[in-house]
């Protein structure tokens, strides 16, 4: 099978409320990615559109996006795996170009979450779980991750203070990312202060500061086969490894709650495909929709042994200057989590890092980067490994 590379990336500013419609929101990152790749609409052979459909009033958004982006009459279609839709889009683009069916494929992810209230959003997100057997109990995403946090704390002695350090780190980099939705400092002290709203309980043990914020946003990636990548791009970023897995939607079907099986499986596949190990990763983006999610990611990806994620963050090894910098763009916690746009945004961050174009967020000379993107509470797991060569 041939190689595939990412030759263009784009991301809109992630905001509380985007002053435009979904097609206009998606266009923001589309034009960035097209300019970045130096291509025009005629160079794009197909487009894959990613979002979580429960937020969209538009049925079948792919058609509308392709029309607005000037990508007719090329084929277009829609893909979703909840919060990991963007990574699934990249997986499809990779197979479309390496199979020889297309030369260049565009992946557009978007979400305009502000069209509905926070409670409505929680109810819709909760319905990303098992609607027949769990949702009737009144479930929502923070509660599912809170149950994982509770189990992790019980099994490994992880403390709230450890989780707070992850939020503090995210906020440190969110402040220097001009595309982040939350650009203020959040300290571990704030999460420990009962007078501070960041410490307010959402679903115990998770507090407001442990949870990512809803946002409106879009991201865009342009994927090309080897010939086109070399023709169009001076700095193609190669897709070295892809892993994907699924698990029971109902928590009753899971073996353990102190980690995510899909992340472990997907990372093993991706490492094998790339022919590398966890220790070879120079920079990573992980799916920190909640602080506990990043803690579990450290362990599921092999950056730390099970139960030792707290030592990794405690020693600041996942900070920009550490052994394995993680989410140095603010992560979902501070950069924001517009569902369908998230995976593409994570991939964009790692592409910019590998090109050496991440500005103030740049880590020192990375060769290989990893993206961990989870859909639902570990229903869908995707790991992508990217490299400079």
């Amino acid at each position: 099978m041939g190689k595939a590379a990412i030759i263009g990336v784009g991301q809109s500013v992630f905001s509380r409320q985007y002053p435009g419609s979904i097609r206009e929101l998606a266009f923001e990152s589309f034009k960035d990615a097209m300019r970045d790749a130096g291509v025009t609409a005629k160079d794009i052979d197909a487009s894959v559109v990613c979002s979580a459909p429960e937020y969209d009033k538009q049925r079948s958004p792919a058609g509308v996006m392709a029309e607005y982006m000037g990508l007719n009459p090329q084929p277009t279609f829609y893909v979703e795996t909840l919060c990991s839709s963007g990574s699934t889009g990249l997986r499809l683009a990779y197979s479309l170009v390496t199979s020889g069916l297309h030369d260049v494929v565009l992946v557009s992810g978007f979400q305009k979450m502000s069209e509905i209230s926070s409670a409505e959003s929680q109810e819709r997100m909760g319905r990303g779980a098992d609607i027949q057997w769990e949702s009737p109990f009144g479930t929502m995403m923070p509660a599912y991750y809170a149950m994982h946090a509770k189990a992790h704390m019980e099994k490994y002695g992880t403390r709230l203070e450890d989780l707070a350090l992850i939020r503090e780190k995210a906020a440190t980099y969110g402040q220097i990312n001009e595309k982040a939705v939350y650009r203020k400092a959040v300290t571990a002290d704030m999460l420990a202060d009962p007078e501070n709203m960041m410490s307010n309980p959402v679903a115990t043990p998770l507090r407001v500061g442990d949870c990512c914020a809803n946002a409106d946003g879009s991201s865009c990636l342009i994927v090309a086969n080897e010939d086109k990548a070399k023709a169009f791009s001076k700095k193609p970023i190669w897709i070295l490894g892809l892993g994907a897995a699924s698990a029971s939607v109902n928590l009753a079907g899971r073996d353990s709650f102190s980690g995510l099986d899909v992340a472990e499986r997907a990372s093993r596949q991706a490492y094998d495909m790339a022919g590398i190990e966890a220790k070879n990763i120079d920079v990573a983006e992980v799916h920190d929709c909640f602080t506990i999610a990043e803690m579990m990611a450290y362990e599921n990806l092999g950056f730390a042994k099970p139960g030792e994620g707290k030592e990794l963050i405690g020693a600041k090894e996942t900070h920009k200057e550490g052994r394995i910098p993680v989410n140095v763009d603010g992560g979902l916690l501070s950069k924001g989590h517009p569902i369908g746009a998230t995976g593409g945004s994570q991939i964009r961050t790692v592409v910019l890092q590998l090109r050496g174009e991440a500005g103030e967020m740049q880590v020192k000379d990375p060769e290989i980067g990893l993206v961990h993107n989870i859909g639902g509470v570990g229903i869908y797991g995707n790991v992508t490994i990217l490299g400079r060569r």
Partner: protein
Amino acid sequence: MGKKKETDDRFKKFGTVSFTSISKVNDFIDYLEDGKIMGSACLECGRVFFPPRADCHECFSSNMDWFEVKGAGILETYSLLNFAPAGFKDDAPYLVAVLGYGKYKVFGRISNRLPKDQIKIGMEMKAVVNKLAGGQLNYVFEKI
């Protein structure tokens, strides 16, 4: 004028808000009315399921029997929700949890009657049927 066709939509009675009305396991609701929480077991290969299923994915059989969820389960994890999603505001705050029974697990709520400081991962609990407002039904976990 034909007679109006009867719809078996018993499943709409499950939980505070049900998002499902018709299922092949609608009898689950009748059992709840009788105070029983039931799983299903495949009559071909013997695999047991909770929540109950109409079809076995091991042997593709739809020849299933009911069994009752009885006795002690182990509390594997839980969370107290301080905010509720739309439709559940009147219930908050409430606890969701998973009980492990060995061959299967049960997702549900912990009884509000149980003092919070008595809840501990690893404790033995039992699942009991709980009647909600408006004739709705669910199950909650209680201390043994």
